[in-house]
């Protein structure tokens, strides 16, 4: 097992990893920017190293500083959390070269899945259904237009180096395609450093369904069921649940098996999530894979009883999957609400000092947070303040428990999305399980519609 682990992240996920390390009796090193000097992950870790000024690019994303911190504290493994360097293949490689285990899949796999068009091709050759679209990236505008016409409008132009909802552009009419193609390439170049784009059929009114997987370094990959993450605003997830109200158990089993099989062929290890769009007719199409632990992993943990983060550490140290987790069984229903420091109506960020903080409790309630009374939510990082997860014997009970939890969650001093979550949980379509990715439009301010 590892001698010492450095957590290359901050906020609630750093605490989550700390938690797993504690259970495994592994000493921890926290890294922090100057803005996080008093953060909980810094206080709770065994050692801590300041790695830069507040900006993410200068600190948590600064590979030399993170690696240096790992060297001077003599760690033998790094857990990258989510975001930041978690899907940076270069970083994973630098870790390898520095004789530090990167807790995640291999750099090659990270690289393949990071290039979205290549991931598509891999998925297709592994037998996963993909969204009809171009075979790879297209440089030429005319060829792109031809492919778009073949696929049939509406289409989506996607940046190959994008992901997580960024770098995508819809085109509904053939006459708008040429201009949209140029703009999309420019935007992609600006945002991701590469103008490469590919074209896919636009799935209208989709639902977002993703499968959680866990693999070891001995060739075994298991799936841990799916999560429904359809409630999104501008492609950012706000609420996730498992199981999906839209899938029946036969569909779950067959797609889960397909996903696990495909990843075994690729030699996937550690945690990962395979994302699909579900069309109105029920067809599932692979869109991308995330080679990291995800924000919404607690939903799966509550339903299966597995500890995904602890398992990540154990398989990274060489353990066999069957020795660290039970073959997953799915019990009950779990919902997660992401509480962000944002205005619940305008979504304007609301950083600042929290003046009162009281987390909910009771049966089936879990709260993952790095926030506390008197904590300062800095403006430099994402706006996630806390995750509330409610588990019940069925969806009805999970919803009831979540409503109670939201009512009992007191956060003052900043604005949060709790009021919005209350609205979602009270909405009849949500309660009926009847929604698609356009669901949140009904709560959007007039200007956005």
């Amino acid at each position, binding site marked *: 097992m590892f001698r010492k682990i450095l957590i290359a992240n901050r906020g609630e996920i750093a605490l989550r990893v700390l938690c797993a390390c504690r259970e495994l009796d592994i000493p921890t090193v926290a890294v922090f920017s100057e803005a996080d000097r008093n953060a909980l992950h810094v206080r709770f870790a*065994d050692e801590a190293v300041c790695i830069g000024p507040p900006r993410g690019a200068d600190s948590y994303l600064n590979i030399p500083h993170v690696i240096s911190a790992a060297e001077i504290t003599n760690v033998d493994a790094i857990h990258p959390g989510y975001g930041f360097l978690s899907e940076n293949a270069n970083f994973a490689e630098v870790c390898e070269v520095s004789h530090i285990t990167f807790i995640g899949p291999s750099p090659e796999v990270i690289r393949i899945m990071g290039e979205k068009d290549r991931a598509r091709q891999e998925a297709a050759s592994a037998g996963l259904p993909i969204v009809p679209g171009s075979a790879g990236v297209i440089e030429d505008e005319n060829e792109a237009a031809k492919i778009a016409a073949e696929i049939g409008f509406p289409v989506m132009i996607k940046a190959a180096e994008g992901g997580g909802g960024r770098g995508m552009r819809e085109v509904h009419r053939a006459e708008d395609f040429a201009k949209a193609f140029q703009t999309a390439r420019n935007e992609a170049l600006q945002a991701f450093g590469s103008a490469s784009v590919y074209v896919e059929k636009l799935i209208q009114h989709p639902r977002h369904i993703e499968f959680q997987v866990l693999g070891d370094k001995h060739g075994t990959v298991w799936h841990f069921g799916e999560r429904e993450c359809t409630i999104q605003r501008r492609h950012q997830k706000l609420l996730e649940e498992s199981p999906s109200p839209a899938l029946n158990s036969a569909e779950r089993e067959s797609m889960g098996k397909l996903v696990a099989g495909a990843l075994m062929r690729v030699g996937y290890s550690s945690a990962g999530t395979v994302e699909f769009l579900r069309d109105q007719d029920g067809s599932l199409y692979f869109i991308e894979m995330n080679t990291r632990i995800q924000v919404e992993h607690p939903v799966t943990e509550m339903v299966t009883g597995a500890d995904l983060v602890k398992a990540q550490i154990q398989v990274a140290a060489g353990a066999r999957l069957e020795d660290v987790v039970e073959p997953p069984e799915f019990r009950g229903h779990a919902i997660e609400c992401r509480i962000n420091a944002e205005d619940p109506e305008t979504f304007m960020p609301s950083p600042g000092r929290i003046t009162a903080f009281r987390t909910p409790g009771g049966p089936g309630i879990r709260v993952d947070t790095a926030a506390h009374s008197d904590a300062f939510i800095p403006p430099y990082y994402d706006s996630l303040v806390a995750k509330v997860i409610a588990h019940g014997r069925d969806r009805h009970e999970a919803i009831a428990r979540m409503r109670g939890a939201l009512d009992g969650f007191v956060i003052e001093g900043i604005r949060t999305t709790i009021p919005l979550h209350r609205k979602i949980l009270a909405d009849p379509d949500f309660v009926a399980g009847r929604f698609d990715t356009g669901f949140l439009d009904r709560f959007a301010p007039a200007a956005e519609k």
Partner: protein
Amino acid sequence: MRNQKNKESDSLVSMDWQELERLLEFMEEHGLEEFEYSRGDFRVRLRKPGSGMMLHPGTTPISSEGQRNGQAERAQRRGAVDNDADDGTIEGVQPEAGRNTSKEDQINGQLVKSPIVGTYYEAPNPGASAFVKLGDHVSAGQVICIVEAMKLMNEIESDASGKVTKIFMQNGQPVEYGQPLFAIQPANQA
């Protein structure tokens, strides 16, 4: 009794560097982690980071595996370092009276802080003499130490011209971003 109190509060309000250092020693002697005092507009809080915040040469286990180049050598250096190195820092000194905003700077001069994470070396190589000693005059841009990071020896330059009034680090000690390395009293300040 009242007079004594007033005297106390006066001396705390005009607390200077030496008194703060004595307070730190007091905390060390009595094993205190945190000390906070406030009166009127003036507030000072001293918090020892303990082993959680800064790195102590003595606490890093000396690995004999030698997986990484130079690790054994570095570990030896650390072992040789004096274990009662200054390991208390002043965290969050907040003289809200406003007059002490650059107290540190005034007393010691300008701080040269580490721009990177790594290991501090006082000399260009083992056995060579140190780049600077206490009391030396340095010019802006002059190399005053090395911070090794990822096998690269980074030369750290002074950002001020003046006299070296304090050397914070011990040779071979790990260094984090922003950690004070030297205090340079600028030449034009008496």
